[in-house]
């Protein structure tokens, strides 16, 4: 367990010292959302109507942006080889790196989301549920993304390939994430959406590290 936390700590330290990855994801997220009022016009009702979907789609794209680097650096400098030779199981390595990735890129999105919701004139009743869906949803994005990042390791133009592989898998998360917010805004209960989102997280938590670990073992061979 301490080794697991050590790896999380090392990845956090690397991310914070390099700085760019974490801030790029959140800046991309903000810019992406800010573009919409320019595109669809400043009509408050329209913006309020599309706010939930826009924020969720922007969150998907922002999380995708930094995923390519999840294993890339460790793969290129030989660290991944050594990690696979350590007594820490590969699944734990994946989980630790994904957790660090989520803390660095996912959490800032959750913090920034309510501000963007204000910008898009979302009804204040939806704010709590927006944060809640992102809190459950963004870890799923990181987990599913880790599979793509592991599979495209060493491939040329891995980033594009990663998007093509992963974006379709993000669709359920998007549907239930945005659906929960819409339900809450229309006076319905968001509970079923949230439960399904929770189910996706419960499924991704054991399955994604297992699949990523298998792909990584192939990559280091």
């Amino acid at each position: 367990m301490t080794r697991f936390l050590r790896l999380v700590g090392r990845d956090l330290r690397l991310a914070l010292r390099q700085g760019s990855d974490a801030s790029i994801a959140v800046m991309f997220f903000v810019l992406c959302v800010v573009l919409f009022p320019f595109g669809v016009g400043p009509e408050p009702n329209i913006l309020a109507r599309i706010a939930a979907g826009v924020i969720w789609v922007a969150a998907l794209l922002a999380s995708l942006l930094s995923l390519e680097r999840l294993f890339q650096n460790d793969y290129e400098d030989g660290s991944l080889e050594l990690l696979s030779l350590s007594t820490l199981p590969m699944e734990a390595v994946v989980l630790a790196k994904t957790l660090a990735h989520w803390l660095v890129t996912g959490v800032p999105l959750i913090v920034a989301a309510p501000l963007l919701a204000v910008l898009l004139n979302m009804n204040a009743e939806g704010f709590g549920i927006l944060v809640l869906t992102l809190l459950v949803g963004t870890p799923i994005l990181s987990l599913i993304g880790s599979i793509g990042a592991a599979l495209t390791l060493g491939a040329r133009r891995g980033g594009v390939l990663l998007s093509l592989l992963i974006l379709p898998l993000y669709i359920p998360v998007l549907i239930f994430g945005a659906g929960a917010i819409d339900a809450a805004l229309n006076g319905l209960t968001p509970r079923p959406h949230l439960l399904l989102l929770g189910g996706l997280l419960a499924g991704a938590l054991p399955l994604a590290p297992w699949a990523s670990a298998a792909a990584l073992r192939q990559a280091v061979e």
Partner: protein
Amino acid sequence: MPVFAGTELTCLRGDRLVFTGLDFRIEPGEALVLLGPNGSGKSSLLRVMAGLLKPLRGQLSWDDIAVTEDPDGHRSRIHYVGHLDAVKPVLSAVENLAFWANLGGAADPRTSARAALDRLGVPHIANVPGRYLSAGQKRRLNLARVLAAPATLWLLDEPTVALDRAAIALFEEIIAEHRAGGGMVAVSTHVDIAMPGARDLHLDDFTPIPHDADEDVDEDMEGEHAA
């Protein structure tokens, strides 16, 4: 007394047989030197020994027990030093090393990391970020890894690349000490590393097809680096 041995090993990379029918045996205190021209499979054999690469046929055993039956146990008793130095540019030398020492099970990673840097003659780089280290310093930092956490079997792939003569002499002493303490070493090298009583293993003896063109061999080496 533990014995690390391989029997009838066959290694396939891509669609090329690298070596076949290879046997080796390392006993405590022994060193095995892998010799052979580029592309003869020295790196591949070390990767097979480490468990990074699965042999097509044959098996590795530790104390007559197949390594595949206890992969975790095998990982905890080896140190593998490959071509890549695994140095993070934004972490200082001692931070880089302490992380691996911790993962390798050192009781006090920071202290053992500093001690290992001392032993390799580079105590002054302890607080220097990885990006400012020279190729030789990075290599010393990578080699310091084998000292920072204990392990019985050292698998060293061209450990002397980028090292100066003084560092090579220092490293010879370190290997001698490790062997005196009952440790085992398998090393591939083009440079002479003085290891009294080491056993030689000529990999070209196990190459199934004779090499005919030099370009062919070069391509194979590139393939190995990429892997």
